[in-house]
């Protein structure tokens, strides 16, 4: 049922796939995610929805090869099907629920780090379609890791690109880029930051310094994604929240990022072992 219709390697480690999932595609909104289980023995892997088309009945997912399970997802080819794709999970972004009047007062800056660019795309697209001013910063280590550049350019007013090594665009991190953009006179009512946990932590700090409210999208551990397991617990404003049903977007100022990073790494030892075994099994070791 969940057939892969298109597959494209955006970088050697980042893969974009269009998958048939009609019910999910009809319900998806910006900010939400889905869960893929590649095959019978696979994990349930939460992935952000980077595009959806209700009339076509398809969703687009972007996966970065990190461990055994993400490698399995990427190993699928066009014409094959995943065992399970379920969603949309989590709440849509705040702006989806805003009145036209509220929206008319907003100026968004979306800040994407690495593979986090994929989920930023539907947000930018939605805002642009609704006439809300929206700028985007894409940050990556180096030029080869920049994804979604052309798509994003058509989905926002100003696209700013930065690389840590200066191989493309501005030289520096997303935080430096943001300070630069603001120093040049751009101003924003709201930032949305999506990327690795550490990048969201420091970009939130920069936003605070610049006085821009910051929303972050937390990619925590999850099993079911419907509120059942509690693996996704995060402390927000001193209170325990479930990222799957109460998030995934939270006020970045309130998130305990250090705890979130520790919790994200809870199965690192087990995963390292799985990777070793996994690689050996299919003869890439």
């Amino acid at each position, binding site marked *: 049922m969940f057939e892969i219709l298109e597959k494209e390697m955006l970088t050697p480690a980042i893969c974009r796939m269009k998958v048939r999932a009609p*019910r999910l595609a009809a*319900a998806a909104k910006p900010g939400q995610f889905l869960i893929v289980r590649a095959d019978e023995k696979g*994990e349930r892997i939460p992935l952000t929805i980077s595009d959806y088309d209700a009339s076509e009945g398809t969703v687009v997912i972007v996966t970065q090869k990190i461990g055994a399970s993400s490698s399995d997802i990427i190993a699928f080819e066009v014409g094959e099907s995943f065992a*399970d794709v379920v969603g949309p999970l989590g709440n849509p972004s705040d702006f989806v629920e805003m009145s036209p009047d509220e929206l008319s007062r907003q100026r968004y800056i979306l800040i994407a780090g690495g593979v986090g660019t994929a989920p930023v795309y539907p947000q930018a697209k939605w805002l642009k379609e609704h006439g809300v001013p929206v700028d985007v910063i894409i940050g990556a280590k180096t030029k080869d890791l920049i994804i979604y550049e052309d798509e994003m350019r058509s989905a926002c007013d100003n696209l700013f690109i930065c690389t840590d090594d200066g191989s493309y665009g501005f030289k520096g991190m997303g935080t430096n880029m943001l300070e630069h953009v603001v120093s040049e006179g751009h101003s924003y009512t709201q930032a949305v930051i999506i990327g690795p946990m550490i990048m969201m932590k420091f970009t939130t700090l920069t936003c605070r310094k610049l006085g821009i409210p910051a929303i972050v999208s937390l990619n925590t551990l999850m*099993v079911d994604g*419907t509120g059942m397991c509690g693996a996704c*617990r995060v402390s927000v404003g001193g209170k325990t929240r479930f990222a799957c049903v109460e998030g995934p977007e939270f006020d970045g100022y309130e998130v305990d990022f250090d705890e979130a990073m*520790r919790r994200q790494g809870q199965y690192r030892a*087990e995963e390292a072992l799985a990777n070793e075994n996994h690689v050996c099994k299919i003869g890439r070791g």
Partner: protein
Amino acid sequence: MANRIPRVAVREQDPKVRARNFEEVCYGYNKEEAMLEASRCLHCKNPRCVTACPVSIQIPEFIAKVCEGDIAGAASVIALDSSLPAVCGRVCPQETQCEGSCVLGVKGEPVAIGKLERFVADSMRESAEEAPAAVPPAGAAKVAIVGSGPAGLACASDLAKLGYDVTIFEALHKAGGVLEYGIPEFRLPKEKVLRHEIDQVRRLGVKIETNVIIGKTVTIDSLMDNEGFKAVFIGSGAGLPKFMNIPGENLCGVFSANEFLTRSNLMKAWREDYLTPIRAGKKVCVVGGGNVAMDAARTALRLGAEVHIVYRRTEAELPARREEVHHAVEEGIIFDMLTNPVEVLGDEKGWVRALKCIRMELGEPDESGRRSPVPIPGSEFEIETETVIMALGTSPNPLISKTTAGLEVNRRGGLVADADGATTRPGVFAGGDAVTGAATVILAMGAGRTAARAIDAYLKGLQ
């Protein structure tokens, strides 16, 4: 006469051996044992066991068939009232229901009704011929069932038998609800027993669509307005884990029992060939005293840990099935009674180091009739541990109530429903843990059956 035969003991895996594997603990009766045990039934004129059974299985009738060696006949009697006999024979709290009401239990041991039910179901499965799936009659009214756990399966079975076109929507990738994600393999074998009983429900003509989260993927309004469902039964269970709200609960190494059991049961993390990780560590403290606590403790034991059950009352108040407590003790689970956690202590890397607890004593009985535990001032102490599993119960998931207009919930988050399962919205019925909060498999099945009758009446009234 007949009642002088002692209750026939059931064969089980040796506790030392089973503490290190996930094979089923109890082997069940063979035919001779079952017939001997069945011969103990007095066939009471007013059988109290039937009244005590939430789905009213005609217990003396099926036992009479077992007595005669007519196992297929016994199965037909059970099938009138239960679609999950192999499950219920294994997981029902018989001691507080059928067996708890058995006259023989007054002076001696009650008839082993649960073990007999299991024997009948297992025998039929082993000799089963694959019957083709029934197809609902043309023009049958469509009914949607939310959740494929015990409530949903029972409701769906009864409605399919009544000729309705029934579709179950399941949020996870496998059908079964708590039977799949919650109850471990060593109590309820998944492929052998559970899959078979769910396939039997499918053979009645029930369709099961997995990976559909009602309230997210599609709403109840859309099912009724756009997909032609005339009635809906919500049996979505009580899935949200409770925590204690004590300091340190978000340290690495603190899990809900739901997470721990879902990893092991649904995701099969205990098997090397499945990718989902699970972590028990060398020592585990499970907080709580219900069936879920026992299941989590015994799973952690099988993963190689030393396991403590930390419970604030005494063994007499443990809400778990007696058999589970007995099995847990036999397997070497350590029970730290009259002990209540006050804080989870961590190391410098943010991992659990110890569970800080306080000693308790029993005070006056509370509204549940159980004596409430009271902390003894100054008695705090630490239990060193790597892992803490919170098994404190669950509450209903708000996904459906939040996304369906006209559905009222009570202050505990349960859906408001009358005795027949009718909610505050016409055509929408509910039952099981989604209404009552966490209870048992069989009570959920009973609620599912009751709602099926009410849905039938409602749909006939529409014509």
